[in-house]
């Protein structure tokens, strides 16, 4: 690990906060996608593979 100088805690906190936020954003997007796919399967949607709506 490189030395980050006298303000290392600010640099590490900024990167940790951003990557936690990104992980949450990616996780939320993937989870929402899985939930909707599962619900469509439960409803027996035969158009789910191409995502057709309405």
């Amino acid at each position, binding site marked *: 690990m490189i030395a980050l*100088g006298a303000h290392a805690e600010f640099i590490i906190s*900024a990167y940790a*906060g951003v990557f936690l936020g990104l992980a949450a954003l990616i996780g939320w997007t993937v989870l929402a*996608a899985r939930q909707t796919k599962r619900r469509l399967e439960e*409803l027996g949607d035969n158009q789910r593979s191409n995502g057709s709506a309405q």
Partner: protein
Amino acid sequence: MTIDTTPKMTWWNRLSHPGQFVALTRPLILPLALLTGVLFAAGLWYGFFSSPPEKYMGDTVRIMYVHVPTAWLSQFVYATMAVSALGTLVWRHPMADVSMKAAAPLGAAFTAMALFTGSLWGRPTWGTFWEWDGRMTSTLVLLFIYLGIVALWRAFDDQLRAARVVAIFTLVGAVNIPIIKFSVDWWSTLHQPASVFRADGPTMPGEILTPLFVMFFAFTFLFITLQLAAMHTEVRRRRITTLERRAARGEA
């Protein structure tokens, strides 16, 4: 002799059909995700191992590699929503309101990250986590606008009606974007004026610009990937609503 009156399927027609849109854009998700991962790995390597401390700010300049891209996205995502709002109100494009709805939480998250990293950069360089200057205040207002839009979407059962209300609100809120952009020129502020996109070229050295640009593209491609995935989810969510209503009427 017969005259073919069938309308031709242009790319615009195909993109306006939710199923066609998903079918066309789904194959893009994996390559975009891989490209995003590679760009983040390269950006972090350049940012931590290949760029020197800055003359005045020292190592805290490395916060810029996450602060500037998230701040850029906070405005770019809103511009995406404003164009989508025009698509809803002017062209009645069926995917425009799907795009508006998918982008709002992403924009809110990037704006919150820009404020968080900005305050952590401000403490060692300016001596304060927060200052009510034009740039920071208008960015905080942008976060509230995003949160208001997310709440507005959830307030309506009828998503087509919600789309028109949200589109008008989004276009009114767009006035805040030039205020954020030009606040450093209009008012006395702790923020420095533009130092990358200038008529006379960037004022930063190449070894700092390189990780900044790589991280800029990494975050931008991440947004495009998440936006497409969220739009696909929204299309499926509307299909679910249609099927559930049909089932409730006993037509299933």
